[in-house]
C-alpha cells in the first residue's frame, strides 16, 4: 500500500523542496521574503528553521540580482530554488533569464550546467492589484534553453518541484497561485511520471480538451458538465509548456477528432497557439473541426472587479466545445 497524505498545493511544493534540500545540501532557497516569513504565500515556510540561514535566505528586492546570482551559484555547483514573488515582477530579471540563464550551457559548449529553478506564482483570480495576476509563460516557453512546467494538483506539485530541482537545466516553475489552497492526495513513494509528460486526467471520446496550471479544475468542471449532457470530453493536463508532450495530445486527437485548448494567458502567440499549430501539422486528416482556443483577451490584465469576465470559465470552454461539435 502506498504512503500518501492530503496536502494543499502550496504545502505540497513546500514538502517537495524540503525533500530535495534534505537529499542534497547544495540546494539553496532564496528570494524576497522567503526566510522568516516563508514567502508571501508561505510556500517556503519552515525551511529556514530546518536548514538554516546559509541555505534559506532573503535576497534584496532585486529580481535581476536574484537570477544573476543564482547563475553564479550554479557555476559554483549550487542548485538554487529562487522565488520571484509574483508573475508581474519577473521582468526585471528577464535579461538574466533569457540572455544568460537560458544560454550559458550552450555558450560554454556544455562545460557549464545551469541547474536553477525559478518559482513563479502565476495567474489571476485572486482579486489582486495590477501585476499580480499575469500568465507570462509564453515568453519563457519561446526561449530555447529553458524548461517551463506547471503543476495543477498537489501530487504533481510535490513531485515536479523535486524533478525541477534535479534537472541540470534551468526550469521556470509556474505555480497556480489561485489553487495554492486546493487540497489533494500526494503519493509520497513514487512520482506519477517525468515532469515533461502530459497527463490524461479524464478519458473521453468526442473531444480533446487541453489545458494546464490553474485552468485544470475549470477544464475538469467543463468536462463534467458536458458529460451530464451526454458529451464525452478527454481532458489533458499539459504539465509542461516547454517541451510539450505532443505524442499524448496527438494520440488523443486522433481518437476524438476535435481539440479545444484552454488557458488563462492572452490567446495570441500563446502556448495554446503552439499546440494548435502542431496538431494541425501532425493530425490534420484526423480533425473533424478547426482547433479552437479559449483564453483571455489580448489586452492588459484588467482591474480585479473585471477579472471574472476576463478569465475563461467553464461556460466559455463549453461554448467552444459546442462550436467544435456543431462544426
Amino acid at each position, binding site marked *: 500500500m502506498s504512503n500518501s497524505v492530503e496536502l494543499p498545493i502550496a504545502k505540497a511544493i513546500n514538502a517537495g523542496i524540503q525533500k530535495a534540500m534534505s537529499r542534497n545540501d547544495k540546494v539553496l532557497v532564496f528570494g524576497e521574503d522567503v526566510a522568516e516569513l516563508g514567502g508571501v504565500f508561505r510556500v517556503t515556510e519552515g525551511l529556514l528553521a530546518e536548514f538554516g540561514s546559509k541555505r534559506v535566505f532573503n535576497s534584496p528586492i*532585486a529580481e535581476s*540580482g536574484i537570477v544573476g*546570482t*543564482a547563475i553564479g*551559484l550554479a557555476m*559554483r555547483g549550487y542548485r538554487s530554488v529562487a522565488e520571484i514573488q509574483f508573475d508581474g515582477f519577473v521582468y526585471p530579471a528577464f535579461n538574466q533569464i533569457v*540572455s544568460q540563464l537560458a544560454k550559458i550551457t*550552450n555558450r560554454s559548449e556544455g562545460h557549464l550546467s545551469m541547474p536553477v529553478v525559478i518559482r513563479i506564482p502565476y495567474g489571476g483570480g485572486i482579486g489582486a492589484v495590477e501585476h499580480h495576476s499575469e500568465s507570462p509563460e509564453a515568453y519563457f516557453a519561446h526561449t530555447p534553453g529553458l524548461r517551463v512546467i506547471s503543476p495543477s494538483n498537489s501530487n504533481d506539485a510535490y513531485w515536479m518541484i523535486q524533478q525541477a530541482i534535479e534537472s541540470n537545466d534551468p526550469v521556470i516553475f509556474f505555480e497556480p497561485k489561485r489553487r495554492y489552497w486546493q487540497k489533494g492526495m500526494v503519493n509520497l513513494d513514487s512520482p506519477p511520471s517525468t515532469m515533461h509528460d502530459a497527463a490524461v486526467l479524464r478519458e473521453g471520446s468526442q473531444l480533446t480538451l487541453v489545458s494546464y496550471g490553474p485552468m485544470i479544475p475549470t477544464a475538469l468542471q467543463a468536462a463534467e458538465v458536458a458529460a451530464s449532457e451526454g458529451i464525452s470530453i478527454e481532458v489533458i493536463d499539459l504539465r509542461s509548456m516547454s517541451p510539450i508532450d505532443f505524442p499524448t495530445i496527438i494520440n488523443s486527437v486522433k481518437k476524438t477528432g476535435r481539440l479545444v485548448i484552454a488557458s488563462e494567458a492572452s490567446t495570441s502567440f500563446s502556448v495554446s497557439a503552439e499546440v494548435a499549430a502542431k496538431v494541425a501539422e501532425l493530425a490534420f486528416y484526423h480533425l473533424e473541426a478547426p482547433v479552437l482556443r479559449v483564453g483571455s483577451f489580448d489586452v492588459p490584465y484588467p482591474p480585479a472587479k473585471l477579472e471574472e469576465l476576463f478569465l475563461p470559465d467553464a461556460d466559455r470552454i463549453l461554448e467552444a466545445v459546442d462550436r467544435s461539435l456543431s462544426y
Partner: protein
Amino acid sequence: MLSPEGIFEVPAEYAEYGKYIERLNLDDFLKFYRDMARIRRFDNECTALQRQGQMGLWVQALGQEAAQIGSGYGVGPNDHMFPSYREHGVAITHGIDLMSIIKIMRGVNHGGWNPEETRFHLYAIVLATQVLHATGYAMGVNFDGLVGTGNPDVDQAVITYFGDGATAEGDVSEALLFAATTKAPLVFFCQNNQWAISSPVSSQTVVPLYLRGEGFGVPGIQVDGNDVLACYAVTAKHMDDARNGLGPSLIEALTYRVGAHTTSDDPTKYRPADELEYWQARDPLLRFEKFLRRQGVGDDFFEEVAKAGDELAEQIRAETFAMQNPPLENIFRHVYSDPHPMVAEQQAWLEGYEASFEEGEPS
C-alpha cells in the same frame, strides 16, 4: 607609482600597496612587459585580420594593456575571473589560448574554453551581466567556507571586469548590493577607458566611478590604469583582502580606449584628436619601457620582444586562415544538459534535409 617618465615612487599613504611591488623581481617586470607587448601585437594583428574579412568583428584592448596585464597577474591561483568582452590581456595572464578569442569574433563558437579549468570565465557580451554572475560565484565561495580560513593555499576570491559604460546598468548596482550584504569575496574592477562607444564617461556618471560603491558599503579606490605596477599592486592587495574575509571592494582603473569601440566604430566622428594625443603620451608600454631601461634593461630585450611579436603574428595569421567552420551538429549541441525531444527532432530534420542534397538531384 610610475611617472610617465618611468620613475618609480610610492607615495607614503600607499605604502601598503608598495609592499606588493617590493616582492617582485626583474623577471616579473620583464614578464609584464612581454605580455603587454604580446597582447598589443595580437590586437593589431586581429584588427588587420578583421579588415581582411577573417573575422566579423574585432574588439580592441589597445591602450588598456597595463590595466589588464597588471590586474591579471594580481589574481591568485585559486581565484576566479569574470570578464566582459575586451579582457584579452587578463585572458593571457591565465593561459587562455588567444586563438579561442579569435574563434568568438570569427563566429566559430561563443567561447570554447572550460571556465572551471581556466578560472577565467567566458566573455559576456550583454553589459554587466557577468558582474552578477561573479557575485553569485563569490557568494558560493563564502558558502564553501573558503574565505578567511587563515590558509592562503585554499582561500579564494573572485574578480569581475567591466567598463565605465557598464556601470550605468542596474546589474552593477544590484551586484554591489548583493556583494555588500553577503560580504562576498569579490573585487569589482572597472576599467574606465573614458568612452562607451560614442558616449563619454560624463554621460554615465557625475561622480568618480570609484565612489560608486560607497553608498552600497563597497569601498573604492582609483588607480592609474596605464601603470602596470600600480594595477598589479592594487589588484593583488584587494584580492588578498577579499580572500581574508574583508568583503568586496571596487577598483577604478583610469585608462583610455586608444582604438575604436570595435572595428565597426569610427571614433573620429565624436572624439577630439588632442584627447588621443594626451593619452598616447601616457602609453602604458612606453612608460614601462622607460622604467625597464632605468633598471638597466637594454635593446637586446626589446628586440627579442619585437621578434616574438612577429612570430606570434605569423602564427595567428596561419591558424586563422586554416580555421575550419564548425560542423552542422554544433547548432543543436548543448542547448540543454539533459536530453530534449524538440531539439533532437529538429536536428534529425536538418540532417535529413542536408543529406537529401548529397544523394543527388532532388526528384
